[in-house]
């Protein structure tokens, strides 16, 4: 039997824009907080998720606090970088390679539409590196297939921004109305500016360990950390290919990762109490409900309208406010979800607490394609 893995500590640097702080400083804040929360353990390895922080980004953070010497591995997996780092650390602990590992994610995103070395120069020159346009195409197909309207898209933003008001780590902490969302400029029809998350800056950290034989109080275990890439053939895959097959049966990476995670944890979506999912844009959140199997295919709009995914609903989604409130620093976002979910499972989320939450799921998906799904459990 493989060992279980528990979350011993969490830490975060709020998400936003911080002109006066380096990406290393953001990381130091999150890492010190997580280590302190875990009782300052000796960790035997560190995994750092980042897409833009450059060479040896993780070494700089641990170098700044005198904690080098252990293996430090930087992991790039787009929006799922933190989830990928978590998967590697958890696997190593399960296998008995380490007893304790530090996982952190750091990012300072460039401003404006994200420029990526992913696209060939000619594709940029031809105007085909328009990232929000790919989001818009996915949104349009979801609206067609699931009967979702632009009003529904605006309501996702209203929900998440309302959740974010009480999250001190969020960038946007004011409520908005559907009218305001729909009055913001159209970036790529059907997506308006306020329906898109803002790339920004931040850091998050998690300490994982094999559970000590005796410990007092409730523990939070990492039941699954799955990462999957895209299958070939889907034209709208987050792999953003230039072509795909006329075949709608290709499973998206989020579905592949979710299946693997449910299998690893030995449970299903109906068992979950709270979810943090990728809401790069408003449609992406609704698509995630279906791809993760939270609701039957075609029911995402109904779930939203019925309030299932609001705080107080049967399965609150993005109680942190999601990326729409927090903004998105790629390397940090998956681990910030874990920070939120562990806070929820500890019962310490204050006014945004999901009552009695025991099982939680975090999901990120983005370029690569990379999708990660993390499942956490509180016991007893």
């Amino acid at each position, binding site marked *: 039997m493989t060992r279980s893995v528990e979350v011993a500590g969490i830490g975060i640097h709020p998400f936003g824009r911080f002109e006066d702080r380096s990406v290393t400083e953001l990381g130091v804040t999150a890492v010190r907080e997580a280590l302190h929360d875990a009782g300052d353990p000796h960790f035997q390895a560190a995994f750092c998720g980042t897409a833009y922080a450059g060479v040896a980004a993780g070494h700089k953070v641990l170098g700044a606090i005198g904690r080098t010497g252990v293996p430090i591995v930087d992991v790039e997996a787009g929006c799922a970088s933190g989830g990928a780092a978590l998967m590697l650390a958890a696997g190593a602990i399960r296998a008995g390679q380490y007893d304790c590992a530090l996982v952190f994610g750091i990012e300072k995103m460039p401003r404006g*539409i994200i*420029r990526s070395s992913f*696209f*060939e*120069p*000619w594709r*940029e*020159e*031809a*105007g*085909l*590196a*328009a*990232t*929000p*346009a790919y989001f*818009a*195409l996915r949104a*349009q*197909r979801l609206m*067609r297939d699931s009967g979702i309207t632009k009003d529904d898209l605006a309501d996702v933003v209203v929900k998440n921004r309302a959740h974010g008001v009480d999250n001190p780590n969020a960038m946007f902490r004011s409520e908005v109305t559907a009218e305001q969302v729909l009055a913001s*400029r*159209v*970036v*790529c*029809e*059907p*997506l308006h500016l306020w329906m898109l998350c803002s790339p920004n800056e931040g850091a998050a950290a998690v300490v994982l360990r094999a559970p000590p034989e005796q410990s007092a109080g409730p523990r939070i275990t990492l039941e699954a950390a799955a990462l999957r890439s895209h299958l*070939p*053939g889907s*034209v*709208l895959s987050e792999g953003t*290919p*230039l*072509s*795909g*097959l*006329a*075949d709608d049966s290709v499973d998206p990476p989020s579905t592949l990762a979710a299946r693997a995670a449910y299998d690893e944890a030995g449970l299903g979506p109906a068992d979950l109490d709270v979810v943090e999912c990728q809401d790069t844009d408003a449609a992406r959140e609704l698509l995630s409900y279906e791809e993760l199997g939270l609701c039957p295919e075609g029911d995402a709009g109904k779930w939203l309208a019925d309030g299932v995914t609001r705080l107080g609903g049967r399965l609150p989604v993005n109680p942190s406010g999601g990326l729409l409130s927090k903004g998105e620093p790629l390397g940090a976002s998956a681990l910030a979800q874990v920070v939120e979910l562990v806070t929820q499972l500890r019962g310490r989320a204050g006014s945004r607490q999901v009552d009695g939450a025991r099982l939680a799921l975090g999901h990120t998906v983005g370029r690569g394609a990379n999708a990660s799904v993390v499942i956490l459990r509180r016991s007893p």
Partner: protein
Amino acid sequence: MAGRPVHEGLFTERHLIGGRCTSCGRHHFPAAVICPYCGAAEIARVELSETGTLWGWTAVTAAPPGYEGEVPFGFGVVELPEGLRVISRIEEADPARLSFGAPVRFGVVPLRTDEDGTEVVTYTFAPADRT
């Protein structure tokens, strides 16, 4: 072809240049030397159909990174009879004027003019009922 193509090997004056895998029979674009679906290195370069149908569309309202042409411009997915869906520029920047399944036709349009006066051109699809 009048003008310099934005990239070699993507299209002729009349067609996109795709690849057909002689092992699994499926098409891809742009033409590669190895099949992106099955990995076989048995690719025939083929001219893809000139006409297709619109599978999805939007308009890009702000210049994406590295793009020096005009905005807004249409952007979408064209489904070709070969069983292939292609990401393409679309010659209609008003999304309200397009519909699912609308017939579209291949074309070549200028993107910008080089310093030496040469036009840089790219592939596109335009609503077929208006051309």
